[in-house]
């Protein structure tokens, strides 16, 4: 036991020395990034971060989306079999199995939900022009749906989403991304090459495939966030 703690201490000290040398030798005046010779001409996206994670390093993003999908799927698979927690106190803010809804939440919930959906659509479709993108927009819409559950029954929202086949559409998005790679391969000579128009930077149809991928990722993150939040709200109050 003493040997293990000594080993951990030595490893942490080595790590600290490496970090110290890195920080003291790092001159933060310039950087070499071969992608960014002329990013506006090559990608036509105003948001350079979007240009990197939706074009230059898209494989990274694909596996990131797969990891998020697996996490949401695992939470859904395990927690839907568990019964609701018995210790749950009735809450005025979020209604489950109850007809009593707080009046403030009934008015504010629908209003905030509408606002958040409009805002999320805006930042999903302008992710290549300014700040925003699919991940942020999906999280905003999923959280807005949670606020809506203040004015409606949580399980009824889930039933409505199931009747709209939201989860089936979400799972089929995993097949759209390879399809878009194959389309890019057919229209050009490389997989995942841009096949959407790359016009003047700053307009709606710029940035190539960033528009399509932002929409797909936004929908997927919205559905995954809602799945996770729904199951966590159902099992609240056990801490």
């Amino acid at each position, binding site marked *: 036991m003493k040997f293990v703690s000594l080993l951990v201490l030595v490893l*942490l000290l080595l790590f*600290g020395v490496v*970090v110290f040398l890195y*920080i003291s030798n*790092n001159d*933060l*005046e*310039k*950087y070499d*990034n071969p*992608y*960014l010779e002329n990013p*506006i001409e090559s990608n036509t996206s*105003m*948001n*350079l*971060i979007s*240009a*990197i*994670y939706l074009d230059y*390093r898209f494989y*990274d*993003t694909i596996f*990131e989306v797969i*990891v*998020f999908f*697996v*996490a*949401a799927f*695992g*939470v859904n698979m*395990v*927690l839907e079999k*568990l019964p609701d927690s018995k210790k749950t106190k009735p809450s005025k803010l979020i209604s489950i199995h109850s007809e009593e809804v707080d009046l403030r939440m009934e008015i504010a919930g629908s209003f905030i939900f509408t606002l958040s959906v409009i805002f999320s659509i805006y930042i999903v479709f302008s992710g290549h*022009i*300014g*700040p925003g*993108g699919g*991940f942020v927009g999906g999280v905003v819409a999923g959280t807005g749906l949670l606020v809506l559950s203040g004015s409606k029954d949580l399980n009824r929202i889930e039933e409505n989403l199931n009747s709209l086949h939201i989860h089936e559409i979400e799972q089929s998005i995993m097949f759209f991304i390879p399809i878009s790679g194959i389309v890019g391969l057919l229209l050009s000579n490389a997989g995942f090459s841009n096949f959407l128009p790359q016009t003047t*930077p*700053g307009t709606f149809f710029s940035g190539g495939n960033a528009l399509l991928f932002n929409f797909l990722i936004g929908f997927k*993150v919205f559905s995954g966030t809602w799945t*996770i939040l729904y*199951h*966590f709200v159902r*099992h609240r109050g*056990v*801490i």
Partner: protein
Amino acid sequence: MSQYLYIALMFVGIYGLLSQKNILKMIISLNIMELGLNLFIISTGYIKEAKAPIILFGNEGNYVDPLPQAIVLTAIVIGLGVTAVALMLARNIYKTYGTYEIDEIRGENDD
């Protein structure tokens, strides 16, 4: 210089992971560690007097390195997934053993 602060935040997280015995506190420590690491990665791309890498604001040719920020965007989403799965496992442990303290978790035939 603020990079030392981010590394210190990461070590706070590591200390919490090693010393706490409550599963929820361990998950919080994991998040603190991840936050310090993300801040450190972002700070490696910092350039003096440069602006955000979005050319919307008329800062063409004078922006910080966007590559660490794109990597950290990936890391944030994966951290969200890891936290969700960890909380799900904690809920499952609570259902099986009735406690969140890892000291009190014992198997049937443990002796």
